[in-house]
């Protein structure tokens, strides 16, 4: 991390003056210890209230996703016969003439399954869909972006041509086509269809990440510290991994914060179209239902039990908004020059 601090000292707080000043000044300047870029960024981030709130909400949903099985009041697949379309607990008389009970805080669906428990299990799918493709995208995109930017030549040209095609293809339409066409193949059934969604998301989004990293590399390659490293004979691999990559990390992290909500929205849309996760009927499955599938189920019952639709919609909005606030905060914190 010290390399980062040195190379980026221009963006950080002013470093102490060199000890050539008078002895009295020296004592004064040394009262404030030098701080690294990451420390600086962190202190800027935690002063940003919207970003902190976003991070707290995200952590809450991650927690809910991990401990879904202990947090859910009911089994999300358990059918309570005769208790279908119950309204939320605070409603005394719903459109169907039923009263809510504290047993089902957000009411039940047409089969009498607990809405709250289903939404809690849905958080699991959304978090997984948000994080796993993003990790794949970062690994593939950063590797290719680094190589293309640093080496240039054929691989760089190829990357730019692929970008042209991917940008012309409306990405949502691509996801729809992939999910429709391959849904019934072996790969489409793996992990209830989640695996195919990961692959499709990664296939489209690695290009943007690679291009972003490539641009960073092209700018950093000309900097003096890279030249200095080349002059002392460091191998290319070391220059890429020790100098260029750490200095691009800020941009990569910010891009990740915006990729995750994009993936969550994509899952919700595909689920709403009936192309997302296959709803499971096995209570031992880890992934039982998703917010997208819940939206699809809720659509049919919009008059009888609006919370079937509202609950997952609020969750999607909350999570996506939180990631955007966190992303904005991270951008401001990691690169104050980018601030609008």
């Amino acid at each position, binding site marked *: 991390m010290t390399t980062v601090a040195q190379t980026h000292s221009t963006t950080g707080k002013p470093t102490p003056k060199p000890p050539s000043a008078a002895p009295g000044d020296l004592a004064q300047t040394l009262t404030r210890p030098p701080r690294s870029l990451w420390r600086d960024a962190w202190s800027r981030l935690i002063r940003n209230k919207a970003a902190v709130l976003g991070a707290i909400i995200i952590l809450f949903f991650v927690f809910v996703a991990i401990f879904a099985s202990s947090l859910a009041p009911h089994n999300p697949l358990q059918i309570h016969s005769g208790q279908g379309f119950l309204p939320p607990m605070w409603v005394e008389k719903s459109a169907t003439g039923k009263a809510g009970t504290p047993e089902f805080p957000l009411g039940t669906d047409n089969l009498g399954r607990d809405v709250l428990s289903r939404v809690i299990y849905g958080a699991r799918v959304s978090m997984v869909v948000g994080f796993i493709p993003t990790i794949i995208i970062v690994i593939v995109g950063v590797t290719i972006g680094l190589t293309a930017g640093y080496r240039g030549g054929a691989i760089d040209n190829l990357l730019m041509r692929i970008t042209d095609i991917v940008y012309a293809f409306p990405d949502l*339409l*691509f996801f729809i086509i992939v999910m429709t066409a391959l849904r019934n193949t072996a790969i489409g059934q793996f992990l209830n269809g989640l695996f195919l969604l990961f692959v499709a998301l990664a296939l489209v989004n690695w290009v943007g990440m690679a291009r972003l990293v490539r641009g960073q590399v092209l700018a950093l390659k000309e900097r003096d510290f890279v030249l200095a490293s080349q002059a002392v004979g460091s191998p290319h691999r070391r220059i890429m991994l020790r100098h260029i990559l750490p200095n691009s990390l800020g941009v990569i992290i910010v891009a990740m914060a915006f990729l995750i909500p994009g993936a969550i929205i994509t899952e919700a849309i595909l689920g*709403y179209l009936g192309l997302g996760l296959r709803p499971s009927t096995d209570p031992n499955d880890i992934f039982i239902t998703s917010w997208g599938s819940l*939206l699809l189920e809720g659509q049919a019952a919009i008059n009888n039990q609006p919370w079937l639709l509202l609950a997952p919609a609020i969750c999607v909005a909350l999570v996506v908004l939180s990631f955007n606030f966190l992303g904005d905060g991270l951008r401001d914190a990691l690169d104050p020059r980018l601030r609008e």
Partner: protein
Amino acid sequence: MTTYLIRRVLWIIPVMLLVALITFTLMHQAPGGPWDRDLNRRQVDASTQEMLNRQFGLDKPLFFNFEGEHILDSQFFNYIGNAVQGDLGPSYRQRGRMVQDVLFEPPKNKPIWDSKFGYSMRLGLLALTMAAIFGIPLGILAALKRNTIFDYSALFISTIGISVPSFVLAIFLIIVLAGQLGILKIIQRDWSNPAAWLVPATVLGFGTFAYITRLTRSSMLEVMGQDYIRTARAKGLGGRVIITRHMLRNALIPVMTIMGPALAGLVTGSFIIESMFGFPGSGREYVLAISNRDYSMIMGTTLIYALLIVLANLTVDIMYGFLDPRIKVN
């Protein structure tokens, strides 16, 4: 500039071919053919299927015909050849209708803009107009009143608009307006009444509105810091003249150039909103095609949408060349 434009236009051909190739290949991985599994109609027996396949050329190889007279006499290249002439093939589910007729043919004695695609185009145009009418002034005001409560609220609204997807907004609006307040009919049947268009257009255009607000604001802020604004002030021009003549004229260039892609994005991205509101556009048709597994319909619509996006992106490059002489293309 001219050579650049020609190259840029010609580049569309390989891009569209690849989009078609990807879509075509994926669609043929899906099980089922055009003549089976239609639960609403009489099943087609094997010999009729064979005849229909021959009639539509579906008995030919997928990509390369090594046995026939011509190597390109295959399903893919015939599809491309027909598509270029405006023939997107028969719909697999709406029997007897061609894909292009479903999308572009208006009902009897109606003008062309009453076709499915025409409906979507008009909805997109309305959404874009509303987004621009509200977004541009809001962005300008936010920039002029920078760091005031007004600026912060504008930024907050636009963050919500950019991040929350339109179909989630649609859910909130439908439940509040239709369910709780009873103002709106959940499923509209009569779209001849212009007021019925307002709610779906608002929902559809909200994200674009937020984006336009942000773009106008940041573009204004950039222009406000330029030397020529200081010069204009120094020579004693009034605030209004500086804003309209010097700032807006420059600040609105990026906003104008995104209008094309924004419209393309709205038209191609409206399918969820359309199916939620029961709007009779090509987007709803697309969603129906997905749930009916009408592969030729999905393929045709995708190609039209991709072409729309490619052309919209092309207009950006062309417009920049005309509007901003500082841009020099190499």
